[in-house]
């Protein structure tokens, strides 16, 4: 059975098609804004989570004091003053972590270099060649064998169009010694890694070469403890904490793992998502105003018709229903088109801004489309409530007199 009030609403929308369309476009924009912003934020979070959880088996230990500037950037003299994980601490960590864990001590600093007479700057990591393959993947070439061998990250290689066998001159023009490194391998892309070893844009050298060049032997920037079973991470962390941070007021080392970093990063990402969702919400507010406006116009233009309906025995509730149907029709139109638009625009935005759409169809991300649609529809109905109430409460005599 078709409801005549629904018919009347459809006809009214059709009669004022342009006006209804414009009001619906407001809802479309609002739905698209909410959905695509929400999906963008969620995809961002999912990607970061994914990248961080790739290092879920790693505990990162750094010296608690903050190092004041890279030691190798200007001269090699300041390195001895730099703080880091010392040999003694490393041994304690080794003891605490137990035989099943793998320890990777890492040196790192920032350096200038020259590549085919083009100067540049990047991070250089000094790692024992035997440790490199324990947590990094060489996509191309071989591991460091000789003293002057080096690996480079994937982005680094792409940016400088590097091939295996190319050479990098390390240091500033003014430096006395400017050693040359030979690239023997290119690492697989690592993304934003959870252990703070961001190799994509870096140079990796052997620990011997590093300490030769920059000094600071046995003072590591960080130590990665790779555990066998990630469930043991809390236990190992507490043992390390007990062994090294004996003075609670000034702890020697800072211990972190993927989950603690993950929660801090995802919490800040989710506040960003909330913020951009709020921006989308504002556009829905604007849409609500335009729906409200259109509904009020519809009521005002049809005062006489409302008078007729009421005077021949239409119940107030039925008049109210008629106008609410109209709001629902506008809402369904807007939300429907908005849903399709969100799919297209959201997909494009996510693929452009995040670079991958592999998280797009996951429930956590995709649910923003139905959520956006429902919010759009609800906003429409809410905007229609007052106009519908106004229409149903008109005095039929006054309404009939209106021209």
């Amino acid at each position, binding site marked *: 059975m*078709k409801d005549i009030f629904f018919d009347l609403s459809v006809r009214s929308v059709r009669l004022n098609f342009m006006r209804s369309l414009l009001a619906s476009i407001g809802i479309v924009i609002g739905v698209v804004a909410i959905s695509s912003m929400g999906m963008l934020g969620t995809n961002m979070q999912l990607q970061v989570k994914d990248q961080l959880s790739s290092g879920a088996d790693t505990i990162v230990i750094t010296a608690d004091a903050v190092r004041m500037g890279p030691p190798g950037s200007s001269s090699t003299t300041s390195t001895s003053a730099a703080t880091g994980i010392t040999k003694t601490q490393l041994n304690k960590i080794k003891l605490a972590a137990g035989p099943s864990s793998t320890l990777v001590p890492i040196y790192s600093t920032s350096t200038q270099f020259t590549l085919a007479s083009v100067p540049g700057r990047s991070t250089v990591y000094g790692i024992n060649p035997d440790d490199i393959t324990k947590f990094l993947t060489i996509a191309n070439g071989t591991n460091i064998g000789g003293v002057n061998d080096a690996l480079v990250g994937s982005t680094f290689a792409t940016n400088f169009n590097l091939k295996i066998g190319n050479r990098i001159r390390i240091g500033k023009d003014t430096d006395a010694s400017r050693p040359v490194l030979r690239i023997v391998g290119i690492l697989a892309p690592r993304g934003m890694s959870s252990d703070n070893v961001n190799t994509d844009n870096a140079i990796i050298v052997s620990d011997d070469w590093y300490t030769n060049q920059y000094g600071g032997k046995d003072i590591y920037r960080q130590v990665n403890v790779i555990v066998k079973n990630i469930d043991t991470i809390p236990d190992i962390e507490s043992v390390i904490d007990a062994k090294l941070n004996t003075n609670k007021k000034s702890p020697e080392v800072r211990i972190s793992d993927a989950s603690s970093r993950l929660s801090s990063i995802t919490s800040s990402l989710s506040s960003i998502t909330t913020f951009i969702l709020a921006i989308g919400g504002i556009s829905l507010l604007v849409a609500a105003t335009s729906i409200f406006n259109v509904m009020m116009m519809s009521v005002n233009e049809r005062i006489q*018709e409302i008078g*007729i309906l009421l005077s*021949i*025995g239409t*119940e*107030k509730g039925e008049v109210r229903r008629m106008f609410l149907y109209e709001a629902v029709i506008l809402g369904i139109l807007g939300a429907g088109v908005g849903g399709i638009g969100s799919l297209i625009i959201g997909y494009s935005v996510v693929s452009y801004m995040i670079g991958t759409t592999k998280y797009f169809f996951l429930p956590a991300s995709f649910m923003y489309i139905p959520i956006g649609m429902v919010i759009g529809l609800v906003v429409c109905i809410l905007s229609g409530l007052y106009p519908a109430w106004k229409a149903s409460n008109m005095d*039929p*005599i006054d309404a*009939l007199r209106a021209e």
Partner: protein
Amino acid sequence: MTTPLIRFADVSKVYHLESGDFTALDHISLEIMDNEFVAIMGPSGSGKSTMMNQLGILDVPTAGELFIAERNVASLTALERTHMRRDTIGYIFQKFYLIPLLSAYENVEYPLILKYKKRDESGKAADVLKSVGFDEAMSAHRPNQLSGGQQQRVAIARALVNDPKILLCDEPTGNLDRKTGFQIMDILCGLHREGKTVILVTHDPKIAEYADRIITLEDGRITA
């Protein structure tokens, strides 16, 4: 003695305007029996429209009591009044007041839908349209595609479709040419003969002649 279908018992209607109170109906007492044909006449502002609003249960008296079909209008709830408008009264307006978004047929079907909460499958709407001489071929047309006479026929059919006891006709021929006006009056006379109580407001003495009884209003009072 039978109970009157409509009884005004000392009914007054006062409008509170910024310029002061305006008494539109001044202590009216009147009885209209079942199957009467009554014409209400009077100059503009004499209270004809106010009286029709009272009869149409669109308004309630300020003082006094109005009984329609033995029910005191003032004591009814808003919903009960709405249902009385739908079931007991058929209202025919000077300007026809058809629903512009509905076709001629749907305009007649509409009160049936209000009453039975479903589309008409009995064919009653079509029958009533036919009975007032409306061309069936025009059923699907919207009101703005119909002539004045055709619109008034649709309006009469709409007023009749729920089989009301009372037909209220507010200047039903006012917007029609003379010939069409008389055709419409013939239809109303026919309905009166079939047992309807017809109450007619008019300026036109020729039209008023169709009625059994003429009530003349002046300044809110019955003068004849």
